[in-house]
């Protein structure tokens, strides 16, 4: 679907117009009908790459092709829907007027726009606010109308830049469900975020950049796959010395109710539990520690 090949981008900054490299030979492919997570800390170059993908800017070198078409060309732009990081739209417009505006910019006819508006508003759950001006929208509503404007021309490829930033837990959950629903409709979603659990929870594949360099790319399962996972055990009823001697713990700390310790893998769990119980200790809980993308990329 999207092929990014050896893309470099640099800007001229400061009084002496010094060249600052922002992206360094980025290469990866976004498969069709997938939710692709794009991770990186703030300032890593995520938004710059998104501007290249959406055709807002052109790379200094390298190519970006969407279904074989250069992304800065109008034909590619018609296939892309884009939600920016901070969706500050023209706030004097109503939700409906905003969608009409973006529909016109994409080259849709008035009848096509009129047909699509109720559909996308329904899809993002914003039908009730269609006549309300954007300056009265909450952050969550702005994200939703932002997604609606990205979908107005029914694109097959959606680029969502930090769609959950600034939202409360309920808002995040709603947006997450909306993204999953859009993916089920067969769209490819490019989901940029600096919050790893957000990406982990919904993405099939993931790429990570740091300081403009790609540091990893592949399926989420590939990154999370491990032979053995550590397990956390909480127990009480023993002295600190006896507790420490129960197993070869990789982590150990005292808490008010007892002790909290981690064994290296599930193979070490059973002997550790047996020793605790033999020493008349009481097991409070056992919690397998699931690997995260944070571990994979750290």
């Amino acid at each position, binding site marked *: 679907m999207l092929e990014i090949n050896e893309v470099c981008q640099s800007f001229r900054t400061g009084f002496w117009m010094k060249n600052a490299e922002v992206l360094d030979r980025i290469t990866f492919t976004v498969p069709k009908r997938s939710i692709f997570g794009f991770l990186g800390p703030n300032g890593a170059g995520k938004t710059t790459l998104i501007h290249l993908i959406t055709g807002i800017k052109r790379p200094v070198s390298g190519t970006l092709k969407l279904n074989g078409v250069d992304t800065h060309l109008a034909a590619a732009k018609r296939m892309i829907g884009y939600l920016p990081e901070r969706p500050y739209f*023209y706030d004097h417009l109503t939700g409906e007027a905003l969608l009409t505006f973006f529909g016109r910019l994409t*080259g849709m006819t008035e009848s096509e726009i009129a047909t699509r508006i109720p559909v996308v508003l329904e899809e993002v759950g914003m039908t009730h606010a269609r006549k309300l001006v954007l300056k009265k929208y909450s952050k969550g509503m702005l994200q939703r109308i932002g997604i609606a404007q990205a979908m107005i021309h029914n694109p097959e490829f959606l680029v969502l830049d930090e769609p959950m930033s600034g939202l409360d837990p309920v808002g995040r959950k709603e947006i997450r469900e909306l993204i999953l629903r859009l993916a089920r409709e067969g769209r490819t979603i490019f989901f940029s975020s600096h919050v790893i659990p957000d990406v982990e929870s919904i993405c099939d594949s993931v790429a990570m950049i740091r300081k403009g360099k790609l540091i990893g790319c592949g399926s989420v399962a590939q990154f999370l796959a491990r032979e053995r996972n550590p397990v956390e055990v909480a127990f009480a009823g023993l002295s600190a010395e006896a507790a420490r001697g129960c197993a070869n713990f990789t982590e150990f700390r005292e808490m008010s109710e007892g002790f909290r310790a981690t064994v290296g893998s599930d193979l070490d769990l059973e002997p550790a539990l047996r020793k605790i119980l033999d020493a008349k200790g009481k097991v409070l809980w056992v919690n397998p520690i699931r690997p995260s993308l944070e571990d994979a990329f750290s």
Partner: protein
Amino acid sequence: MKTFLSSFRSLFAIARVTFEEIILDKILYNFLLFAFLLIGVSYLASQLTFVGQERVIFDLGLSAINLSCGVIAVFQGGAMIAREFERRTVFVVLARPISRLQFIFGKFFGLAAVLLVNWVLLAGTEILLFLSLGGEMNGTRFVAMAFLWAQACFLAAFTFFFASFSTASVSIMLVIGIYLIGNNVESLRQILSRPDTSAIAKSFLPLVGLMPNLGHFNLGFIATYGLELPAGYVWRGTAYALCWIVPLVYASGRILDRREG
């Protein structure tokens, strides 16, 4: 043909949103109110004279229109481009199949439409006041008023140009400089052409020739007395305005192409 129509619709959509955005800006009404007050003052000032009251009204009215349209062009034009980048609205628009040139021309047409509405309101009031005091409205006087709109568009184009590579405040200051120089190009040329002018000062004469000459839009006493216009004056003035406006707006779009935001 279809592509052309689609481009035109995109351009019109941007112009319309720009127009609505400025029209809803409260600052605009302050400028407009100020201009109406100036026209009101022109009526009071005309009462201080026994002869040529309508000429006083006309002259001061022209100044009010000039000031109001000019201020709106410069301040709104300067802030508009900066605001697009600050709020990042420009990027959502440019992610659509439109070019930066279409975007900048759309913005310009939106501002020009606001200037036109402002001009219609003020010129309409001015004409009514002028006629009520027994003045005679003729083609020359109308052209003098219309050229104030052209001049405002001219200043807006310069503001766009400067705003495309600098901040709003710097572009506003530069355009004020252009306005002051542009209204004095003829005087500068006369001073530098005098025989007693030093050679160093005379070397600046070609530079003066490159400066925009806003004198083309200022009919002065010809408008005040309603005299006949020189032949081809309207076409020359219009062509002069277009010869500056189109390349300036075009250059703004090209410069924005390289801007990173």
